[in-house]
């Protein structure tokens, strides 16, 4: 096996691929993304971490201070308000302990001290509020610094790992809800790679099998396959994706299954629980299943067409005739002689489909039809655009999403170009 792999690396095509520097850099980039995705799948960044509010709204990246107006907003926004609310509760001490903003906790002081700090902060706030335009009033700057220092007294000191984690999650700032842009952007890598891999694998397998069968058997098999793919490809791709994705919004698979099995809605909870466990965690609404389905239905067409054409050529090769005269079954000939000889096309199509799926996922999510309940670059771009933040200079969210996506798509484009050059030089 290892020997076969090393001899594969020594083939002319692989030598050509390996001598392509850009492709090798792209490969390293892709490997990084994939490793990151695997790490996230193993729990390096949880979905909860992406939804946790870690700081004030729209913090700029790299701990930039921003304009005085922004600094005022940031200082007074989350912690001060939360602390004030907690102080009005029946048991302020308990309520204060509950406050959690990412890694930030309220410092472990008596309630009276906290109350004093909040009052002090409010006094400075009132003074600051007298100014019409903070940005244009340099005299207010010392007051602003005082406010920031006062609010900071509310924080329990962080150290070690907590501190690193908190700083890291604020590295690229926060979004409109105060969630970490870095964490959300990185988590989207996993979503993108996951959708890309699943869709590309499924499409390539389906397309290769159908295409090879259509090309090899000809006749009615060919007619059926060609009819299906011409029908599918006559529907505008994105429209079909939108329709399928839309059909799934509000679809609750578990409820449907319960209905199919005839379990009444008011049946004992243990019965419902068992059935629920049987299809454990099939939360279709928030899963990626609709996306997979929508992509799976359309993405195999290109591969199918290419493999069918190649099979039409290959089946007239004499080694296929030789296999037929030897008496091999059609199935054997397809699997052992035809499909392996389309491997180069399958490889190229796989990498093209992967980019296609990632880009389509972002578009669908941007339209609000793709990924739900978890971060995605599409959702990040939409969130950033919706609030006019980009225009007012808050580029961190859209920037993170687009840069991460740009690097991945560019790397894959370079790689599939290189693959095409190396394995399919006749292709224009």
């Amino acid at each position, binding site marked *: 096996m290892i020997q076969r792999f090393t001899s594969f690396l020594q083939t002319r095509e692989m030598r050509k691929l390996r001598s392509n520097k850009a492709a090798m850099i792209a490969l390293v980039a892709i490997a990084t993304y994939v490793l990151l995705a695997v790490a996230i799948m193993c729990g390096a960044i949880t979905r909860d971490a992406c939804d946790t509010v870690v700081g004030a709204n729209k913090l700029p990246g790299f701990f930039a201070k921003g304009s005085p107006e922004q600094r005022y907003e940031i200082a007074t926004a989350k912690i001060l308000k939360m602390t004030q609310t907690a102080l009005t509760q029946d048991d302020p001490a308990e309520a204060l302990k509950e406050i959690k903003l990412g890694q930030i906790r309220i410092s472990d002081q008596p309630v009276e001290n906290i109350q004093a700090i909040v009052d002090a902060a409010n006094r400075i706030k009132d003074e600051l509020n007298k100014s019409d335009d903070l940005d244009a009033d340099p005299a207010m700057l010392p007051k602003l610094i005082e406010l920031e220092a006062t609010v900071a007294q509310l924080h329990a000191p962080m150290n070690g790992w907590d501190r690193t984690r908190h700083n890291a999650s604020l590295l690229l700032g926060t979004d409109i809800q105060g969630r970490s842009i870095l964490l959300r952007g990185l988590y989207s890598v996993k979503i993108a790679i996951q959708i890309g891999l699943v869709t590309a694998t499924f499409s390539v397998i389906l397309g290769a099998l159908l295409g090879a069968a259509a090309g090899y058997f000809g006749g009615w098999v060919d007619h059926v396959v060609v009819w299906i793919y011409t029908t599918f490809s006559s529907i505008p791709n994105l429209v079909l994706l939108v329709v399928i994705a839309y059909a799934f919004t509000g679809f609750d698979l578990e409820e449907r299954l319960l209905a199919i099995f005839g379990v009444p809605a008011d049946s004992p909870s243990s019965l419902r629980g068992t059935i629920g466990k049987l299809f454990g965690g099939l939360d279709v609404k928030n899963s990626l299943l609709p996306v997979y389905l929508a992509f799976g239905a359309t993405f195999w067409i290109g591969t199918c067409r290419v493999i069918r054409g190649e099979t039409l050529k290959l089946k007239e090769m*004499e*080694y296929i005739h030789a296999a037929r005269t*030897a008496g091999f079954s059609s199935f054997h000939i397809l699997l052992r002689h035809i499909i392996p*000889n389309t491997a180069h096309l399958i490889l190229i199509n796989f990498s093209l489909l992967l980019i296609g799926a990632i880009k389509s996922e972002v578009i669908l999510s941007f339209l609000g039809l793709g990924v739900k309940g978890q971060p995605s670059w599409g959702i990040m771009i939409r969130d950033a655009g919706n609030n006019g933040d980009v225009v007012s200079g808050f580029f961190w969210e859209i920037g993170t999403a687009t840069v991460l996506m740009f690097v991945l798509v560019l790397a894959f484009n370079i790689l599939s170009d290189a693959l095409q050059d190396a394995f399919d030089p006749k292709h224009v």
Partner: protein
Amino acid sequence: MSQSESHHASNPPTTDKALVKVTNLVKHFPKRGGIFNQVIAKVHAVNDVSFEIRKGETLGVVGESGCGKSTLGKAIIRLHDPTSGSVIFDGVDITHLSRAQLRPIRRQMQMIFQDPNSSLNPRMTVEAALREVIRLHKIVSETEMRSYIDSLLTKVGLRIDDRGKYPHEFSGGQKQRVGIARALAVKPQFIIADEPVSALDVSIQAQVLNLLMDLKNELQLTLLFVSHDLKVIDHFCDRMLVMYLGNVVEEMPCQDIHATAKHPYTKALLASNPITDPDQRGELVVLEGEVPSPYSPPAGCPFVTRCPIATDRCQTENPPLEDHGDGHRVACWEV
């Protein structure tokens, strides 16, 4: 053309030693077109051909490109399903057998292909390609597999350590040897060699031909040898068929063919071969014109459009293959 319509007295003299008997074999390729994808024309690739091959004999099939000689070979081995007629192999009519029924027969008949560059799967090592066929037909057990493959490679003049190589690591002649080894792997009785040397270098041609000849004698093979090269056929075969536009125009033993050939087409083929001795050069027959389209062959004799001795009769009536003694049959009104 159905068998009953055939006016040819084409049943060759039957001997009980016949291994392959081909009777009135017809292969048409339909050409489809038009809005309903209907058959709009037919290529008459093989037209009502009958002959037999005796056990241990080598029969040559010669003709220019497009005359249907390869199609004939492929129809016999059922790579093409014949339009009509029958092929009897070792007493069994294999014309209408299913794939599964054919499998044991395919062990007995194998094919060597023309183009060594496309006759081997580029993604399979020699060993994998051979093992696949041996395993399918259970020729030897798994334990003997290795030594059997080694003996096959030695037999066709390859080295034992060529076993793990991929086709692209071989020269054309070596690839053809692998192709021969693959055909021999199932220990067949009958081999169809479809222009086995025409894609090879002249110096390699002789080596491969000699190999085939040795193997034929050693393993007592029966061969159908398809070629466009009369010299090769003359050198290699016991008898030969000359084909023109899907029809057999002459069938003769390969002895002194220059003197005994009777059909004007065979004569023209012989004349086109350069002869090194100036004294032996006969009159040069140069054929005029082109081979007619196989979509619309002439009504009478297929050769009529280019025949130097054609008469009015040839325009309308297709001459049958007539016996001229000594297994020599000619399809011509004028000889």
